[in-house]
């Protein structure tokens, strides 16, 4: 029987009730008395000299309070970057200034130039149309290879468009080159990891407020990590000490990475509210989101895999260009390097690996982490080149993978990480079962009879979640710690409030976190309330991204609860006149081992706050504890995915007929939520593989700038998925044995889709088709079939 409460139960989400009745409280639902409205004037050209901004007519329009331009922000800091990469020669990356509002130059379509603040939104929008930027257009640089071969400079002052040239592991380079040169077989593949736009359904919103009575600022924002925004904006941009700055991220309508970063609009509304002495609100339109939210992916890669005659992997070499866009977004430099190069071993025993990444500035929107961040790019290259190698060598792609699986753990890869646990044969076995691979031939025959091509694609993936430990990532260039925090406050009447630094924007923490704590104490889940998203009432935390919430934030919560239990046992021991060591806590009751003496959880909580019969000489009253948890290592979820497609030979249209995912996430707290995370990740991965692609024209205009042009999966583009997470090798270094599940679907699914389409075409006799770049639109697939 499945559990009906606690760890392992599919507890229904308590947050759903407010979301289903229209009572959610998202940032745009927040209105502050007397608030003014901001409307951004943005560059409509990709590259140009900004000679000036004529605001005179606009300033005279009704309701206009003030118009801000770049000159207003010269005295404050630029938008900071949170990660400094060191290149192959030991030099630090080029890090140009990222002004809050453009000054002197505009560098991408959407670059903010001026902001009108007015009494009403309509007045701000009307006046913005009368603001006239004086721009001398310059030739934009869009292609990454051209950008580093003498193209126009995005930032004149740094003298190059090459942000860094990173080699990893640099000491392996010669050995890798030699192994590839002497190998029995080398498979080479050039591919593009298409540029994506995260598109959480809630556009970004920022509301700045200023309190004159105590000179404090408050920012309400659509963020995945309010403390990070407080630190970056307060310390590096506006010079507001953290004790005078509160950042609140209430209900947030999806993030997928793009709400991690500190954005200019957040700094703007906070700054303007103080200047104007009234609240200032900005709500992005979707069109604005397309040209101001950080984009994702956008890698161009050549990968070479060397194999011996038996199919053992000998060496792997990759050469990648990674687009940074026009400015360095918060964690952009880390994505193609430490979140990508370290994953190139995948699930395999490849002894020698060398990864080269050139990060490049172009006149496009900044690029940063999007669901998976670096790991989907690594997985896609690896799992595509393995499939191609299998085809070239005439061996079964699954057997080739199995032959090279890592089977002994812990396993130190040649790319600096150590996998603690995993069982890749087990997830592959499970996949073959749930995907009904044995039934493929019958389905193939049926498709053929209907005039359709059919293909089966499979792949493995490994992911690294809960990036850590802080002292290591500091050496790698992170300008932040990567711990998580939790304060557990037990109230006198026995209920608990858990204040966590993790942030929930769809993950269901308000439900799953209490499952853990309630089980530890043996009380009802409804006695535990989760508080998150407000720097004023949660300890300094790093927020939610990288599938880290349960592995890192959950571990902090467990540690704090352990402290609570230890103290509660001392109180119970005093009251029960027993020794601490003899006290047991079970089902919400303290007992003295070997006796029938017991005390209820609530009685101990009350005693902590009404300490009449209490060991005051040895123990402080109260029952509240905080823990900061800094993990010893990443966690390493893994899995195997299978996709079956049909291809219409007349049109090239691909339909997903079946999709199966067998994941190993270690221990599971709420299987229903985990299933949902995987479903959503798969949909985004299928979106990347078949439909999504941010596209710029030659002038640097984003031509996929709305939902009319940027194709996201709709309900009728997708099937039901078969997901399974019964293969569980628990993480060895966190107290819950959990690994993280948020990004797996998006990491694991694109290669299986492309492998399936190539398989379908190969089976139909198009033997020259060994790769098609994503998105596999009907036009691209049709063209491939003609070639």
């Amino acid at each position, binding site marked *: 029987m499945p559990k009906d409460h606690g760890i392992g139960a599919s507890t*229904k*989400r308590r*947050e*759903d*009730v*407010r*979301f*289903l*009745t*229209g*009572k*959610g*409280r*998202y940032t*745009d*639902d927040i209105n502050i008395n007397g608030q003014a409205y901001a409307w951004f004037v943005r560059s409509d050209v990709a590259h140009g000299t900004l000679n000036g901004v004529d605001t005179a007519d606009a300033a005279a329009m009704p309701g206009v309070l003030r118009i801000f331009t770049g000159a207003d922000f010269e005295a404050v800091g630029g938008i900071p970057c949170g990660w400094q990469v060191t290149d192959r020669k030991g030099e630090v990356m080029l890090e140009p200034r990222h002004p809050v509002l453009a000054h002197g130059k505009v560098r991408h379509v959407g670059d903010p130039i001026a902001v009108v603040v007015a009494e009403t939104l*309509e007045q701000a929008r009307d006046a913005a149309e009368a603001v006239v930027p004086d721009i001398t257009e310059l030739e934009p640089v869009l292609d990454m290879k051209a950008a580093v071969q003498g193209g126009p400079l995005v930032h004149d002052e740094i003298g190059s468009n090459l942000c860094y040239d990173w080699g990893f592991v640099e000491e392996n380079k010669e050995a890798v080159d030699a192994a590839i040169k002497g190998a029995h077989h080398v498979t080479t593949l050039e591919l593009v990891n298409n540029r994506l736009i995260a*598109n*959480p*359904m*809630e*556009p970004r919103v920022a509301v700045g407020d200023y309190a004159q009575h105590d000179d404090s600022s408050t920012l309400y924002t659509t963020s995945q990590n309010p403390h990070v925004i407080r630190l970056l904006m307060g310390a590096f941009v506006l010079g507001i000490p953290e004790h005078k700055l509160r950042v609140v991220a209430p*209900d*947030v*309508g*999806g993030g*997928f990475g793009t709400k991690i970063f500190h954005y200019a609009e957040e700094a703007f509304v906070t700054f303007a509210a103080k200047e104007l002495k009234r609240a200032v609100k900005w709500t992005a*339109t*979707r*069109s604005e989101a397309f040209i101001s939210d950080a984009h994702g992916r956008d890698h161009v890669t050549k990968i070479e895999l060397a194999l011996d005659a038996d199919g053992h992997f000998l060496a792997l070499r990759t050469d990648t260009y990674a687009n940074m866009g026009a400015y360095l977004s918060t964690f952009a430099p880390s994505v193609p390097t430490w979140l990508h190069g370290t994953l190139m071993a995948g699930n395999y025993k490849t002894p020698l690996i060398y990864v080269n990444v050139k990060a490049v500035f172009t006149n496009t929107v900044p690029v940063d982490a999007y669901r998976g961040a670096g790991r989907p790019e690594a997985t896609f290259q690896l799992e595509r080149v393995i499939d191609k190698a299998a085809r070239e060598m005439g061996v079964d792609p699954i057997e080739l993978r199995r032959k090279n699986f890592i089977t002994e753990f812990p396993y130190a890869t040649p790319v600096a990480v150590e996998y603690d646990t995993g069982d890749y044969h087990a997830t592959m076995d499970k996949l073959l079962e749930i995907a009904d691979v044995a039934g493929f031939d019958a389905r193939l025959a049926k498709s053929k009879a209907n005039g359709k091509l059919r293909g089966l694609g499979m792949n493995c993936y490994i992911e690294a979640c809960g990036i850590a430990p802080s002292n290591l990532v500091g050496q790698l260039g992170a300008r932040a710690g990567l711990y998580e925090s939790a304060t557990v406050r037990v109230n006198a009447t026995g209920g608990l409030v858990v204040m966590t630094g993790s942030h929930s*924007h*769809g*993950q*269901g923490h308000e439900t799953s976190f209490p499952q853990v704590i309630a089980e530890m104490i043996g009380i009802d889940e409804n006695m535990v309330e989760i508080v998150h998203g407000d720097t004023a009432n949660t300890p300094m935390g790093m927020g939610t991204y990288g599938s880290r919430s349960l592995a890192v934030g959950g571990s902090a919560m467990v540690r704090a609860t352990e402290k609570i239990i230890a103290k509660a046992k001392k109180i119970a021991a005093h009251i029960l006149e027993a020794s601490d060591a003899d006290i047991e806590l079970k089902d919400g009751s303290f007992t003295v081992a070997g006796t029938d003496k017991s005390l209820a959880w609530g009685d101990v909580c009350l005693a902590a706050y009404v300490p009449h019969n209490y060991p005051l000489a040895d123990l402080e009253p109260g029952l509240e504890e905080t823990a900061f948890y800094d993990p010893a290592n990443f966690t390493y979820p893994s899995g195997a995915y299978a996709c079956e497609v049909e291809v219409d030979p007349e049109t090239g249209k691909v339909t997903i007929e079946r999709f199966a995912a067998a994941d190993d996430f270690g221990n599971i707290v709420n299987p*229903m*939520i985990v*299933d*949902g995370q995987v*479903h*959503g*990740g*798969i*949909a*985004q991965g299928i979106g990347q593989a078949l439909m999504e692609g941010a596209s710029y024209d030659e002038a640097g205009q984003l031509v996929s700038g*709305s*939902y*009319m042009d940027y194709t*996201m*999966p*709709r*309900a*009728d583009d*997708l099937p*039901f*998925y078969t997901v399974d997470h019964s293969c569980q090798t628990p993480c060895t270094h966190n107290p819950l044995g959990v690994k993280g599940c948020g990004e797996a*679907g998006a990491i694991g699914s694109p290669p299986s889709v492309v492998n399936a389409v190539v398989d379908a075409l190969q089976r139909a006799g198009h033997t020259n088709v060994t790769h098609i770049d994503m998105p596999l639109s009907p036009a691209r697939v049709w063209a491939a079939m003609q070639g």
Partner: protein
Amino acid sequence: MSNVTMKVNGKPVSGDVEGRTLLVDFLRGPLGLTGTHVGCDTSQCGACVVHVNGEAVKACAMFALEAEGAEVRTIEGMAEADGSLGTIQAAFQEHHGLQCGFCTPGMVMSAAALLKDNPKPSEAEIREYLEGNICRCTGYHNIVKAILAASGQDVPAIAAE
């Protein structure tokens, strides 16, 4: 500014609006009914779906003045009289048909409109009907299941096919 009067969730309301004021902005602003969301500016995402005189309408694609005299129903009007979740709402919770919750009001309103016209839709009919509602979190799997369940159909059997 012009005055507009309508019934929202059974209550008569009125207010002064500009000619260009969208129905969704009237609901979210003066009426404070923030359950209806705005997710795009091209009438594609469906986060703003409400019912106007019983029909599903994208409230971003209609001026407030066009709803003069209309009966409007929003997500705030979908619960049972005692405040408990309605059948569709309860099915979304039971089947985990929502994550971040932002598209959810539009999904529930669209689902209600579908089931009114087609009380036992097939999986394919549900998927086709939801073409105007984008969800970025769920991959639609559990939304489709929830709507099948709300229509009284055997969800495990259909999902397993």
